[in-house]
């Protein structure tokens, strides 16, 4: 059985009226679900209070937290369900991080092609310059 865990990033915004304990409860609930399903938590990043770009449910502030973890696909839906049911969570987002490797490969390929093209252009220019120099020397003779 291969390891089907994938790298995910979970971010959520909690109501500013919530106390520190409430915030901890939400984080612990997410962490517990992941650990129960043999997931691995890489990082828990607490940004704290910050201003929102637009008011959500009449609040101008929110408490941000981001969690990166390796977990299976089934856990994804469990976390999604939990966060939806929680009234203190105003916004949440879960997205995969490992599919960025595909994009990165495409980009590296593109950059290699660009480098080859630019090198060829420089070489052609250099050849052109050499030819013109030779012609000049011949003229002087």
């Amino acid at each position, binding site marked *: 059985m291969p390891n089907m865990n994938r790298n995910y990033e979970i971010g959520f915004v909690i109501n500013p009226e919530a106390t520190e304990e409430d915030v901890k409860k939400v984080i612990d609930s997410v962490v517990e679900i992941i650990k129960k399903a043999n997931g691995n938590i890489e990082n828990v990043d607490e940004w704290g209070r910050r201003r929102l*770009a*637009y008011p959500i449910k009449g609040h101008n502030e929110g408490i941000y937290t981001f969690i990166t973890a390796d977990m299976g696909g089934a856990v994804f839906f469990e976390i999604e369900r939990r966060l939806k049911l929680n009234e203190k969570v105003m916004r949440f987002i879960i997205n995969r991080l490992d599919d960025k490797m595909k*994009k*990165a490969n495409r980009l590296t390929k593109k950059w290699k092609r660009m480098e080859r093209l630019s090198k060829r252009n420089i070489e052609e220019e250099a050849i052109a310059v050499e030819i013109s120099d030779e012609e000049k020397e011949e003229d002087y003779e």
Partner: protein
Amino acid sequence: MSNQNSSSGPSGRYQKKFYFSRRKYCIFCKDKIKFIDYKNYKMLENFILETGKILPARVTGTCTLHQKQLTKAIKRARHMAFLKFIEPKRERVT
């Protein structure tokens, strides 16, 4: 822009000179950025208008691969309230 005005003939040549501008390049390709993160919202603010609209690639000069990532990142940042949604233009009150 240069491709549009590359018609041959004297008139085309003059037009080329008239519309000459510095060539745009992809900022992300220059810095070799492979992945655009939506949490880096201060960088994303450079690619939206004051009204919140996403600038097209032909204005900013970003390549297609990066523009695709950029639009997705901006939309995610909007959902998480890092950036604002598009605001309608205010009508003039006379």
